[in-house]
């Protein structure tokens, strides 16, 4: 199991959160932690055995998702490992 934190910017629509969570579940990821301080941004920590790109690429396709990226600290860690 690997844990990743994603930072997602999105349009503040009524259904965007539902879409993000549905894709997260369906693509084989479990939400471990989630924070939303406004309707247009969220930080979500997910766990899975699957590569995180499988999730981020699907989230990026959502019409109301503006941007989905790995949280900076983790990006650095991933870069360092690579």
């Amino acid at each position: 199991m690997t844990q990743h934190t994603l930072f997602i910017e999105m349009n503040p629509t009524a259904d965007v959160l539902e879409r993000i969570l549905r894709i997260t579940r369906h693509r084989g990821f479990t939400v471990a932690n989630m924070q939303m301080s406004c309707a247009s941004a969220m930080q979500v920590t997910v766990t899975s055995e699957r590569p995180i790109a499988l999730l981020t690429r699907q989230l990026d396709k959502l019409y109301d998702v503006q941007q989905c990226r790995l949280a900076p600290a983790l990006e650095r860690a991933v870069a360092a490992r690579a």
Partner: protein
Amino acid sequence: MISGAEAVVRAMADHGVETLFGYPGGAIMPVYDALYDSPVEHLLCRHEQGAGFAAVGFARASGRVGVCLATSGPGATNLITALADAMMDSVPVVAITGQVPRAAMGTDAFQEIDLLGMSLSCTKHSFLVTDPAELCDTLHRAFALAAEGRPGPVLVDIPKDVQLAQLDYVPPFRAVAEAANDTFELERAHALLRAAKKPLLYAGGGVGMADAVSQLREFIQITGMPSVTTLKGIGSVAPGTPGHLGMLGMHGTKAANLAVQQCDLLVVVGARFDDRVTGKLDTFAPHAKVIHLDIDPAEIDKLRVAMLSYCGDLRRVLPEMAIPLHVESWREQCDASAQQTAPSYEHAGPLIYAPALLNQLSQRLPERAIVSCDVGQHQMWVAQHMTFASPADHLSSAGLGTMGFGLPVAIGAQIARPEHMSVLVSGDGSFMMNVQELTTIKRARLPVKIVILDNQRLGMVKQWQELFFEQRYSETNLSDNPDFVTMASAFDIPGRQIWRKDQIQDAMQEMLSSEGPYLLHVSISEQENVWPLVPPGAANDQMMEPQA
């Protein structure tokens, strides 16, 4: 000012919609009222699923957006299967549904269902219009979104009071295409191509969806590479192209599957490593480096890591990638393998052999006939034994595998291309799943030709029961089927039943020369199975073949 319902119809006209498919009901009545004296034609289907699939057939045969219309609640839920099918096969469809009035939403009102919630997993995107001022913009976005990038179904759910509200119509905006992130290491692609001794092209449905068939064919001609296609990719490579080995995968040709297992470079174009294609994934193309070209970034590295990938317009990248390669001996080896393993249409006894009948039908069909099929054994026989000049001529439910797909899809295809013959090849199981659409054929006087391959069984399930479930034939006996010819006659559709080889010639002639619709009921033996078959969990070179 016009009503929201009038805006819906006007938006459809502005997006070039000439015919849409649907079924009226309470919450969509204002739109039906606006359609009453509109130039936009509406074809009444006899079930919303039929309307959804007719829109799919229209879109797949024409390359244009298909449109379907339904009411709230059960009307909308009946559309779901067609939307899911369109989602899996990347078909551009706009579905417009009525919803209960805004004040009634969330109260469990009559015919209320949270369709937005239901649509999340089976549409590319879905809109619920809660503000009349946003209706026009939403409709225009829906049409653009369905067709752009990787196409797919888009739903617009419109509460009845929004349909009745007065608003100022806003015409379609001119969409500015975002610059695609489509950088490609062309030199590296050329290097990989030159270094390969056994390169193979694996073409999928994306080629046809991207309108890149001619670019793909030029690529094959210039490189000289052998090729295989997926179920949806059939027709993208011209029949008879040197090195073309047909379909790969579970019911693919032996030559195609063996070539994939031997190749050292797989150029994947508009395809997605579906499990029916790969068999046991970690044994698929074990010696191959992969170049993956697809419009959808989410498909890259999803199931198989690509050494090089490109997300963007296939029509641009294929000509750039095409360089002459010295692969004559590999191509000749592939052609020889195809020749050695070609299907035989020799068949003993008087009874009809379905693969031979379909091969004969394929040769006798007029140019650019559109063949729709359902799901099961007959679907695989169509893929294996008929040839197609374009992917838009072979309409098969590939991703979702939906029984009941064929009849309404053949209807939508006939509406889209009235100049071409629309033929349905169905099975006795699938045909009954949307049989109500025979009325739609009658209503619109559509000359759809229907061939039912009837083995009185749910054939593909029965085949698996025979092979993998110890011949325990649970609920696959359909010997209580109706008399299909008599049933067709109730819809003013003439037809006949045949069961012997010597009846084929005349019956086929009668069907193909008839001006209106026709139903040919072909009785076949329940003993015939689809071969070859890659059993579940096996590698693609471990194909099962019929016992001699």
